[in-house]
């Protein structure tokens, strides 16, 4: 009995000490526990104006949206700016009376998320022309000459025979994206871009929008800054197309189709200039961008994984998986010993749930089930012929590899799932589970075997949802001490003698009601 007491004390220490340590670290560090994305950007507009008389400067401030969270940090500086909403944009204006060099500064933080839209492939191309506000995004403008005959002809040529909206947009996008890219600060309009068949971001964006508009697809350019940890002057222009009932981003310069990376800072919508100012003697500006780790707790960190990943150039996915494995294994034993769900093996649900983050949930499950099912079938004749166990496993492994290669070939021709998806599954585990499944079917029938398969997948899914939480991953990367807490929890669980939840059901009839 004293042994149990020792174990309990060790377990409690393992759980408590790291938590205390984490508390101390939080106390001694400046950062805050921001869990969602692991970093944010601090952007500062810096401008210097030399003007004899009164002057005006106009620019834009970003607006928070689904994909970017903005926090404005107004600072003391020259002239209190006025901030007004104008249409879809937030406009900031500074006014001054002139004099020696005047410094203007404005700061905000940006936390962005990657976004990827699933486009409906079956929307008709020639729907009724949208009415209302959207008509603004159909008419030609100074630099977006969507009524130009060359633009019209090109748009029609590119979409000939296309009945549906998404394929048509894809054709236009591929054309513009495929044009040569050049770096120029010169203003390029849509027609110029088409004539030269080369352009920078602004030419390509205007051309793509013009092509869309000429086919009565509402489209607009939008501008901002691609955030990186530097000071820069260049801004960026990309586009948005109205599909279904929402504006979907497209960057024809950098090839983002219906998607946008998290470090794109969107500042304004429409064919605008990011900074305009009245006549001055001298004007200079720059965007100072600083990438800040949200989860940075360097003080008292025995192992600062974030810093290690930066310094040693270790891919963060690798470390994420490494840290997630123990959590996954703990969850599986929790499901098995406390809930009483049975699974094929302990590691299988963990490894499969991690693989599912690469393949996507539904395709991954279908793929996994079909591989395991097919290979389990192979086991039937092998058992009937009395093939020895070791040789049988080697044969099943061959079957798994053949099925995986076959699926890669099949998937290569469809767009349903990436062809490499079968490789994300741990092949050895696939072999083992196929054999176990086949054995279970033989010994206890297809019903029992499917039940066990079902509960394995249930556990896999539950673990998948927990492990794919970026918050949990970032917390682990910031506070890897948690691993010791897990060790303590495992020790406690390993000494737990209570009835499993499912056993209440199983043994229900033991007691006469």
């Amino acid at each position, binding site marked *: 009995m004293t042994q149990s007491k020792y174990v309990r004390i060790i377990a409690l220490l393992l759980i408590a000490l790291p938590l205390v340590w984490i508390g101390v670290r939080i106390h001694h560090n400046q950062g805050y526990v921001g869990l969602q994305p692991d970093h944010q950007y601090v952007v500062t507009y810096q401008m210097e104006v030399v003007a004899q008389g009164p002057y005006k400067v106009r620019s834009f401030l970003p607006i928070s949206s689904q994909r970017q969270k903005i926090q404005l940090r107004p600072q003391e500086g020259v002239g209190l700016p006025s901030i007004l909403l104008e249409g879809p944009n937030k406009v900031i204006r500074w006014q001054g009376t002139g004099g020696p060099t005047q410094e203007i500064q404005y700061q905000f933080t940006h936390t962005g998320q990657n976004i990827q839209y699933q486009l409906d492939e079956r929307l008709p191309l020639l729907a009724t022309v949208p009415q209302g506000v959207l008509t603004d995004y159909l008419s030609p403008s100074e630099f977006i000459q969507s009524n130009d005959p060359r633009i019209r002809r090109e748009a029609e040529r590119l979409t000939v025979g296309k009945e549906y909206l998404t394929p048509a947009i894809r054709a236009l996008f591929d054309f513009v994206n495929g044009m040569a890219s050049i770096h120029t600060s010169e203003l390029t309009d849509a027609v110029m871009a088409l004539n030269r068949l080369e352009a920078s971001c602004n030419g390509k964006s205007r051309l793509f929008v013009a092509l869309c508009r000429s086919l009565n697809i509402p489209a607009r350019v939008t501008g901002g800054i691609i955030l990186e940890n530097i000071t820069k002057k260049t801004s960026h222009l990309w586009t948005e197309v109205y599909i279904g009932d929402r504006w979907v981003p497209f960057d024809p310069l950098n090839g983002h189709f219906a998607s946008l990376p998290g470090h794109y800072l969107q500042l304004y919508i429409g064919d605008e200039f990011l900074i305009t100012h009245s006549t001055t003697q001298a004007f200079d500006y720059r965007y100072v961008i600083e990438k800040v780790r949200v989860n940075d707790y360097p003080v008292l960190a025995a192992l600062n994984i974030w810093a290690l990943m930066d310094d040693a150039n270790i891919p963060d996915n690798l470390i994420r998986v490494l840290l997630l494995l123990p959590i996954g294994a703990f969850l599986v034993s929790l499901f098995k010993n406390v809930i009483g769900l049975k699974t094929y093996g302990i590691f299988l649900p963990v490894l499969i749930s991690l693989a599912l983050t690469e393949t996507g949930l539904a395709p991954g499950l279908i793929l996994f089930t079909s591989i395991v099912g097919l290979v389990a079938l192979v086991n039937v004749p092998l058992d009937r012929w009395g093939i020895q166990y070791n040789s049988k496993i080697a044969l099943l492994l061959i079957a798994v590899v053949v099925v995986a290669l076959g699926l890669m070939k099949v998937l290569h021709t469809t767009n349903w799932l990436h062809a490499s998806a079968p490789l994300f599954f741990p092949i050895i585990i696939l072999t083992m589970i196929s054999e176990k499944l086949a054995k279970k079917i033989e010994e206890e029938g297809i019903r029992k075997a499917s039940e066990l398969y079902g509960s394995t997948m249930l556990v896999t899914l539950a673990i998948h949802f927990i492990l794919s939480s970026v918050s949990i991953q970032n917390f682990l990367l910031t506070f890897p001490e948690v691993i010791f807490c897990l060790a303590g929890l495992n020790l406690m669980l390993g000494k737990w003698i*209570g*009835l499993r939840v499912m056993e209440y059901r199983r*043994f229900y009839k033991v*007691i006469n009601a």
Partner: protein
Amino acid sequence: MPKQMPVLSKMRALRQAVLGMNQRNLSLIYPHNPRTSYRYADDKYLAKKIMEAEGIACPRTYAVIERIGDIEEAWNTLKVWDRLVIKPARGSGGKGILILRQQQGQWFASGQPISEYQIFSHLANTLFGIYSFGDADVALVEEFVEPHSFFHEIYPVGVPDFRIILLKEVPLMGMLRMPTAQSGGKANLHQGGLGIGVDMEAGTLKLAYNGKQHLEVHPDSGAAILDKEIPYWEELVALSVQTAQHFPLDYLGVDLVIDARQGPMVMEVNVRPGLGIQLANQQGLKEILQQKNLL
């Protein structure tokens, strides 16, 4: 007493009475059965050696075949028997067990004629480890146990047996495992067999449990089960205690049969006896362990 127990008090009652998997492993198997002793139960050949050395009644061993080259020679000595049973020493779940019967020089297995060549290849397969996860194995050839008429009165097909679970040589609970039409001759609970509780004091049968409900009669034969008296019950219990005394395992399940002529015999010893026996008896093991001050 209300007819239907409220769920929470029922759960409490279950917690107090029933032995769950976690507690079985942590409180009984791990502390009482040293890992190194598992082999005495998992290997039927080793178990057999202990039983024979200690004079525990068990089916007579006709031959132990360890090498392919020995098959033919061994077979020549085995041909004199009319009935025999071939078992892989380390097989599990009844896999690879072949029951043979001879009639005027022709051998039969489950009613079908079988050639000597087929018997040889079965023996060779056994030695190769087909029935024991690929590890080389040993084939045990034993006397056929003719089930006592007691079993046939209930259901005349298949291989029924008793299981008695003991801790520190104290018998805790017993069960009769009986095949059904659905279980295809096998007596395992999860294969559709019946688990019939045993009144340890009275030596009589309790209700039969088929995995869903408790029955008073055998579902196929209609033979009465409840309160049926078990012949040789005291000998069966004594035999299980004797077995427990001589195996280096403190928590074990002893599987027994009654031979028509020779009486009770031990068939097998199990280190991790299942918990379904509680359902067959409608009684919790935890409760019994506490009553006997063993927990």
